[in-house]
């Protein structure tokens, strides 16, 4: 018998949606054990963890995808909005339900490894599934940003998504015709891109994603860019060239990106731009 009052899980999900999430799902904390390495499982971060609440949202709007200037998507990041929802849910769980709640920090403890994989959390909470392009896609809304809260509250958990968003019907048809999909075609690993994969019977049976290569393209104006220019500037013996490096457009944009971290999340969206499943099912005029 649940220790929570009736309707608690539904009320929490309702609060998440009202706070701005597009979707909210709940995973069993133990479900991570067979997928996540030690120290990166819910109970490693919060002793006694029983559930993981996952919210998705703050995605690019249909208008952002339709904009003709690539600078729009490069500088419209809104991940901060979904993280704010996660933080508020953590506070709500503690103050309203009386259970411990840990907002999973969006940063990393070291290197590129997150404290808890938000992509795995979204999958286990039934609000998304992995795509050929890498990101977890929600079947209704497509590409979303994610935030998660680990809690000791025994919330009602959701099952995994039954119908995966990827590959979309249009991509399956394209595969039958051309042996590729929009995302694989726009960024093929065999031609200097990041992605590769294979469909059989309408399902992905092999995927390949070159994360380091993708990282250098998606985060061109981020901390890596800063470090790169700093090293070059210090290695440059010519004072005039050094000045050009430091006042150059690349370094200036990098400084903007570091300062406005929440609005300069990524600088490449091509695999998502061409993905029929990434933009959600709602059609606009």
């Amino acid at each position, binding site marked *: 018998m649940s220790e929570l009052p009736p*309707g608690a899980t539904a009320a929490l999900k309702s609060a998440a949606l009202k706070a701005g999430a597009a979707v909210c799902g709940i995973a069993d904390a133990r479900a991570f054990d067979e997928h996540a390495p030690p120290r990166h499982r819910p109970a490693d971060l919060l002793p006694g963890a029983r559930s993981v609440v996952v919210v998705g949202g703050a995605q690019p709007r249909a208008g952002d995808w339709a904009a003709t200037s690539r600078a729009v998507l490069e500088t419209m990041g809104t991940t901060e909005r979904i993280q*704010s929802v996660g933080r508020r849910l953590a506070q709500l769980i503690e103050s309203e339900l009386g259970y411990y709640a840990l907002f999973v920090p969006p940063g990393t403890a070291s290197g590129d490894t997150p404290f808890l994989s938000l992509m795995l959390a979204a999958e286990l909470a039934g609000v998304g599934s992995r795509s050929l392009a890498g990101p977890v896609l929600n079947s209704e809304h497509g590409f979303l940003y994610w935030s998660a809260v680990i809690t000791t509250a025994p919330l009602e958990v959701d099952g995994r998504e039954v119908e995966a968003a990827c590959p979309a019907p249009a991509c399956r048809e394209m595969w039958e015709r051309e042996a590729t999909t929009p995302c694989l075609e726009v960024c093929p690993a065999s031609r200097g891109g990041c992605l590769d994969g294979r469909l059989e019977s309408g399902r992905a049976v092999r995927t390949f994603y070159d994360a380091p290569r993708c990282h250098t393209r998606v985060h061109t104006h981020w901390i890596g860019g800063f470090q790169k220019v700093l090293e070059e500037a210090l290695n440059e013996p010519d004072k005039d060239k050094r000045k050009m490096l430091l006042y150059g457009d690349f370094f200036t944009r990098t400084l903007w990106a570091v300062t406005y971290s929440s609005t300069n999340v990524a600088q490449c969206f091509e695999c998502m731009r061409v993905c029929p499943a990434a933009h959600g099912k709602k059609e606009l005029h």
Partner: protein
Amino acid sequence: MARGPEGPAALAGVRRAPYAPDVATPAASATREESIKAVGLEAGARVVGIATVEAFRERVPEGYRPDDILPGARSVVVAGGDGPTAGAWRCPDHRVMEITGYDLRENVAVHAMCDHIERAYRHHAIQAPSLPVHGHAPPMSMMLAAELAGLGTRSFAAHIILNPEYGLLYYAALITTLPLAPDPPLDRPACPHPGCVAMYKRIGTTPCLRVCPACLSGTVKDGAIATSTYDRERCHSRAQTYGIGSFQKALHEIVNEDDPARRRTMIYSDFFTKSLEALGFYRDSIAQCFECMRVCPVGRKHRKLR
């Protein structure tokens, strides 16, 4: 829901904070002080209090008073927001607390109240500037504002303002030309907690003084703080290991390094990378040491959950 004052529906909106004097008054008969507080609490503040501008005059040097910042200022409204959740305090991985994200909702609450004051009462209202402009000195002290608004008192622990109900909160304030009735300062200081007074009687120290004798020292007399010393510079170097200071330190070492290979190692090191991340994600990397607050009993009842 189990503990909310308004039942399950409270989760769908923003609940009423339990420590919010007088905000339960129906909107139609609410005073303007109650109305402003309700706006702040609904916007995410945990507590809201009010101080008069006059209260700052005897404690603050000229140039740092509210009416030096907003001519004609009459009142200061202060919002306190939550810090880490109880779950974050329990995390065995210290790195989570080091970069655990904050909502900083007190800033949102202050802006919501500013908008409300300007629209509803036609008086000027601005967020009080609080980021340091010279060294560690802010244009206006949020700690003093919180004290004068009756939201908390200074503690042994780095002189952090403790709210008697919630302990550690983060504060923001607004300055307005609207005259408002102030809240009285707390009649009893939040620190030392009765448990700490008893501990001091037994062994001559308190939890915070014992956990960080490097930064803190003090004495208790008649159940109150008699003397208190806080080594701010030492604390700063420990509490903010990633941030502007660490960036400056690492950059200084990098530009002074003549060997390109060593320089490269320093530039791409985990320390420098995390320092840069701290600059970008400032909300997530506010502090890297919480030990004096970890052991503080004030507000701990809100950290004891299931």
